[in-house]
C-alpha cells in the first residue's frame, strides 16, 4: 500500500474555506481524478486521508499538509497534477511525495505566518513588536467552545518582525506586514492571539481585520528560528532509494 503526502494551499478568496468544506472538496477531487484510494473497513467505507494541523477558516495558507493511502501505486508528480486540476483554483496541490518515513505530524513543529495590517504605520508596528518581544509573558483571552480562556501568547513566538510592504500592493494608505514564527503548542497560539497580545502590550489596534497567511510549517530550528521543509526527509529517502536502484542497474558485472 502506497502512502503519499501532499502540500496544498488556500489562496485568495478560497481562504474562507473551512476545514470541513475542504475535506468534502478533496474527496470529490479524489473521485474526479479516479485515484485508486484505499478505503476504511465498515458499513460506510471512507477513503483513507489524514489531515494535519489545518489553518483556521479565513486564514490563507501556502503550506497545508495531508496524507492519502492508495490501493495501487501511482506516480506522485502525476497525481499532484491530476488532483490540482480537479480542485477549484485557489485550493492548489503544490507538492506530492511518497511517504518513506514515519511520524510526519510530529515534524510539523512550527508555522511561519505573514500578517498584513492595512491602515497600520510600519513604525507603530515596530514599536508594538518591540514591546511584545520584551515582555516575558503576554496574557491573552480567546473564546473557545468551553468559554473564555486565558493563556500566554508570548512563549510560543520564536520570531516576530516587521517586513517591508511589497511595492505592488493594491490600494494606498499605510500598511505593516508582520512575519512570525510560532511553535505549535497546547493551547495553540494563533496569529490572532499574537495580535491580541500586541494590542495588550502596545495598544496596536488595526482598523480593518488582518489578512493572515501561513507561509510554511515544518521542523523548527530553535537557534535560528527557521522552519524547514517537512517533506524533505521523504524526498531524500525517495532519491536515495531511486539512486541505489539506478546505481545497481548501471553497475556492469556487479557480483550478485
Amino acid at each position, binding site marked *: 500500500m502506497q502512502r503519499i503526502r501532499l502540500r496544498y494551499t488556500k489562496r485568495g478568496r478560497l481562504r*474562507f474555506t473551512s476545514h470541513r468544506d475542504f475535506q468534502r472538496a478533496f474527496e470529490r477531487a479524489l473521485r474526479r481524478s479516479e485515484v485508486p484510494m484505499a478505503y476504511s473497513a465498515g458499513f460506510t467505507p471512507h477513503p483513507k486521508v489524514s489531515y494535519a494541523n489545518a489553518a483556521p477558516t479565513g486564514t490563507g495558507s501556502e503550506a497545508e499538509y495531508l496524507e492519502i493511502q492508495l490501493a495501487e501505486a501511482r506516480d506522485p508528480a502525476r497525481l499532484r497534477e491530476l488532483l490540482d486540476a480537479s480542485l*477549484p483554483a485557489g485550493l492548489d496541490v503544490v507538492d506530492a511525495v511518497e511517504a518513506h518515513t514515519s511520524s510526519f505530524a510530529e515534524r510539523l513543529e512550527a508555522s511561519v505566518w505573514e500578517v498584513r495590517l492595512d491602515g497600520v504605520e510600519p513604525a507603530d508596528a515596530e514599536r508594538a513588536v518591540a514591546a511584545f518581544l520584551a515582555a516575558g509573558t503576554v496574557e491573552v483571552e480567546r473564546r473557545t467552545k468551553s468559554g473564555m480562556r486565558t493563556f500566554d501568547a508570548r512563549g510560543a513566538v520564536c520570531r516576530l518582525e516587521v517586513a517591508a510592504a511589497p511595492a505592488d500592493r493594491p490600494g494606498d494608505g499605510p500598511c505593516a506586514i508582520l512575519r512570525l514564527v510560532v511553535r505549535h503548542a497546547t493551547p495553540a497560539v494563533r496569529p490572532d492571539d499574537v495580535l491580541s497580545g500586541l494590542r495588550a502590550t502596545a495598544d496596536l489596534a488595526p482598523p480593518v481585520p488582518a489578512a493572515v497567511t501561513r507561509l510554511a510549517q515544518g521542523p523548527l530550528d530553535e537557534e535560528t528560528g527557521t522552519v524547514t521543509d517537512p517533506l524533505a526527509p521523504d524526498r531524500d529517502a525517495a532519491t536515495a532509494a531511486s539512486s541505489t536502484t539506478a546505481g545497481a542497474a548501471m553497475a556492469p558485472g556487479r557480483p550478485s
Partner: protein
Amino acid sequence: MSESVFPQLEALLPHVQKPIQYVGGELNSTVKPWESCDVRWALMYPDAYEVGLPNQGVMILYEVLNEREGVLAERTYSVWPDLEALMREHGVPQFTVDAHRPVRAFDVFGLSFSTELGYTNMLTALDLAGIPLEAKDRTLDDPIVLAGGHAAFNPEPIADFIDCAVIGDGEQAVLEITEIIRAWKAEGRPGGREELLLRLARTGGVYVPGFYDVEYLPDGRIARVVPNRSGVPWRVSKHTVMDLDEWPYPKQPLVPLAETVHERMSVEIFRGCTRGCRFCQAGMITRPVRERSITGIGEMVDKGLKATGFEEVGLLSLSSADHTEIGDIAKGLADRYEDDKIGLSLPSTRVDAFNVDLANELTRNGRRSGLTFAPEGGSERMRKVINKMVSEEDLIRTVATAYGNGWRQVKLYFMCGLPTETDEDVLQIGDMAVNVIAKGREVSGSNDIRCTVSIGGFVPKPHTPFQWAPQLSAEETDARLAKLRDKIRGDKKYGRSIGFRYHDGKPGIVEGLLSRGDRRVGAVIRAVYESGGRFDGWREHFSYDQWMKCAEETLVPQGVDVAWYTTRERTYEEVLPWDHLDSGLDKDWLWEDWQDALDEVEVEDCRWTPCFDCGVCPQMDTTIQIGPTGKKLLPLTVVK
C-alpha cells in the same frame, strides 16, 4: 462600470457566518471578461446560497448563457441578515458571487421563483443593489428585472416590482431575450426601456405587467385585464422545450465548497407529468410529458460525474418511476457504477409494487432504511377528489413487498385541507398508518417497524382545477390535525410505532395569499419587507403575525382582505388574476375537472389513454414525447 466589490466585501467576511458562501470560485463556475460581452445577465435564486446553489433551473440557464459568445451570466443569492446589515453600513451593493460585480451593472436581473416565499428576498436584493423597488421608477442605468420559475405563472403579486416575466422552460427563452437586447443595444438603445420592453412583449412570450391595465368590479373582483399598448398580446404564452436530448444541461454542474441542501449530480429524466393530480401545479403547468432518452441520461450521468466527483446521482422529475424505461435506466446505472460507490436516488415516486423492485435496485449495495410514498389523501374518497389513483390495497401490498425485502421504515406523505375534506377523511390517515404497521409486523415477524406520517397543508394554486377552491383556514387546519394527532397518540397497540410530522396552518395561508393574489397583494409584500420581513421559507425568520398585520393595513383600504384571497371559493365567471397568462390548459377543461373532483370522478393519464383535451398540445403546438427506445445502457470501461 463593473469593478469588483470584493475588496470591500472581503473586509466584512471575517465578521459573518459561513463566509465561504459569498466568495464564489466553485468548481465549474465561469467568469467571463466583462468587456468581451455585450449582453450580461445576473441570475438569482432568492434564497440562501445553501438552498439556491443546487437549483437546477439557475444552473441550466447560467450554463446555456455562458456557452454563448458575447454573453455572460453570473449568479447572486440572498445574503443572510448579518451580512445585509454590514453591507448597508459599509455601502456594499448586492453582488454576484462569480466576479463580485454589482448587480445593478448588468443588463438583466433574472430571478428564479420556485416558490412565492422568495418575494420579500427579491425586494431586499433590489434595494441592496440600488435598483428602485418599483419598475416605474427605473432608468436606463437599471437592469431589466425578469422573473421566471413556477411561481411566475402568477406574477401578479410582484407585478409592480418586476419589469417582465417568462413562464415555462427557460433554455430557449433566455437566448431569444438575449438577442433582442443585443440588437437594441447595438442600435443605441432607441426608445429607452419602454422600447426594449415593447420589443420583448411583442414576441408573445414575455409578460410585461406594465403594459396591462387591471380593472376591478365594485365587489373587488377583477373586471378585466387589458393591454394598454398596441401590438401587445392579450395573452402571453408559456415556453416549452421539445427535445430534452438537445438540451443536456447542466453539463458541468456547479460543485460548491460550502455545504448545501442537495449535493448530488441531478439529471432531469423527463419534464411534465400527466398523472393529473388536481392539486399539483407543477404537473399542470409543465405538460406535456417529454422524456430524455435512456442513452441521453446515461451520457449526462457519465459526463456529470466526471465533471463533479459527486458520489450520488439523483434522477429528477415529477414522478420518476413513470419514465418508460426507468427499470433499464436504474439497472443500467447500478451495474455501471457498482464498483464506484456511487449511490442512486429517485426523489419522486408513486405507490406501486414495481417501485419496490426499483428501490431494491437502487440500494443494491447499501442499507435499506426508509421508503417514501405519497398517497396524499387519507381516505379513498379523498384520493378520488384529488385524482391520486391509489387504493389502500395497492398501498398495503406495496408496503408488504417492501417490508418483505428488508425495508424497515415507511414514510407516508399526505395533505390536509383538500377540497370537500372532512375530519373523517383526515382521521383515516391514522387507520392507514395502523394498517401499514400491522402488515409490516406480520410480514417481517418483527415489532421493530416504523411508519412516519408527514402532513402538509394544501394550498390551492393557479392553473390547476383547484384554482377555484376555498383554502382551509389556519384554525381549522390546526384543529383537524390535532384530532388526528390525538387519535394516533391514543392508539395503545400501534401508536408508538407511528411518527407524526406536520406543519401548522399559518404559513400555508401566507403562501395561499401570494399564490392566488393579484396586484393589490404587492402592497402587502412591500409592507412586510419594509418592516423587516426576510427569508419567509425559513421557520425561524417567518412571521405570520407580521404578514397579517401588514395585510390588514394594506388590503383593507383596498376593499379586500386575506380571507378574500384564501378561504373564498371562486365562481366560473370570475376573471382570475392569471387568466391572461397562458399555460395552454383550457379554462373550461380545468373547470370540468374541478366539477369532476367535486363529483369524485377520476381522469386517466393521457400517456396511456387517448388525449382528454386538456388543451395544452394544440394550444402550444406540442406533443407527448415518450419511449421506450429499446436501447440499453452499456457499461463504460474506465481508461486508466
